[in-house]
């Protein structure tokens, strides 16, 4: 008997970060875009702390670094589990792990993003050679294809995705800037509700149809945030040669 679900593709623009975060609840599975501190939705990340939710499952490549980005969530103690690919020098995460306050699941990066894409694309599971013969294979189905062992990996979805875009139109068509794109489009596809923090909100029709990085079908709420810290994680430069 039940009819179609209510349409979600109108009135997506929110006036504030707090409004954009409405409904984000304790225990939610939350994907956050960015590669390290590059391409972080900084205002949404801060907003989640201010909202006061807890027990979050965070799905993000790095969970911040240098006390910035998603380190705020770890410092605030609102994360129960992190699914990520790399910890490295992320002291906040090392500390929380060591203290037993945060469970950490480490996934190879290509598998991580492919699992996220699979969730968004309606693919339940897939076979990848990555991780065969390693600890990553433990407890997973292993199967040979073309003479090579492959692991069965499951789709990885979420309740919410929080991403940063360079520009968004009111329908949620997005463009990203350079390597700030990374996991964000895939996370938008994989979450039930997708929140976009756009550096700039532009009128509908600004983008040529061929130039949309991610169509608005995958986006549910948009908040414009013009100011970002955009910290350097490792600022490396070379001296400018004479005469340039």
């Amino acid at each position, binding site marked *: 008997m039940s*009819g179609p679900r209510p349409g979600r*593709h109108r009135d997506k623009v929110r006036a504030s970060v707090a409004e954009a975060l409405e409904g984000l609840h304790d225990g939610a599975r939350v994907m956050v875009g960015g590669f390290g501190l590059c391409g972080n939705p900084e205002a949404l990340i801060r907003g989640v702390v201010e909202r006061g939710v807890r027990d979050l499952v965070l799905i993000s490549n790095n969970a911040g670094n240098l006390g910035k980005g998603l380190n705020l969530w770890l410092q605030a103690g609102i994360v129960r589990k992190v699914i990520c690919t790399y910890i490295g020098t992320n002291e906040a995460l090392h500390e929380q792990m060591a203290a037993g306050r945060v469970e950490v699941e480490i996934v190879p990066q290509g598998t991580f993003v492919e699992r996220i*894409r699979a969730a968004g694309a309606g693919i339940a599971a897939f076979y990848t050679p990555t991780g065969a013969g390693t600890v990553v294979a433990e407890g997973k189905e292993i199967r040979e294809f073309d003479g090579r062992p492959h692991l069965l990996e499951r789709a990885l979805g979420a309740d919410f995705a929080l991403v940063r875009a360079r520009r968004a139109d009111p*329908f949620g068509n997005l463009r990203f800037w350079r390597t700030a794109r990374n996991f964000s489009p895939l996370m938008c596809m994989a979450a039930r509700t997708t929140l976009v923090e756009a550096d700039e909100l532009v009128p509908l029709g600004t983008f040529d*149809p061929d130039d949309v990085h991610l169509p608005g079908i995958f986006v549910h709420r948009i908040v414009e945030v013009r100011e970002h810290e955009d910290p350097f994680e490792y600022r490396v430069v070379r001296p400018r040669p004479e005469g340039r």
Partner: protein
Amino acid sequence: MPWSREQMAERAAREIPPGSIVNLGIGLPTLVADCIPPDADIWLHTENGILGMGPFPYEGEEDPQIINAGKQTVTIVRGGSTFDSALSFAMIRGGHVDVTILGAMQVSAAGDLANWAIPGGKVMGIGGAMDLASGSGFILAMTTHVTREGEPKLVAECTYPLTARRCVHRVLTDLGLFACGPEGFRLLELAPGVSLDEVRRKTGAPVLEGRP
């Protein structure tokens, strides 16, 4: 009087909530496009790679490289986007298309859909039908109530090759609108002047009344 094709299209359009992403199959469902209110924020998806498909182009503005899944020339609305087929089917299979309206050869009470092949007939191919039927949030099947030979298309069990099982939520025919369910087709609305008796006579499965 049974609904005309145009009236069916209008009725189908009223099934679409504002703010929805919609995919319209080939044939009857194509007519629905013209009945969608312009201010409803309804976005048409076509599986060959447009979100925000617009009406047919004005004479002289047609581009052979801007087509719909039926290979007809179309346009792209303001805010529309184009993309490759993998992303397009990620939208479909991933459940991001809110409403899909598909033609049907047979629909079973339980919601099985057959719309791609007639036993013994020429094989026409599957196209995007199976993905659309498996992936969409809500599927409205749209068909005349009976075949040209008077055979019911709403049946207890499909005898034609299936497109997908348990996928159709509602069926709109020239006689009425029905919800699929394990016990039969539940009548939601009758076309004006059509009797429940006529519907029952022309349906190959129980037709139920009232809320379940």
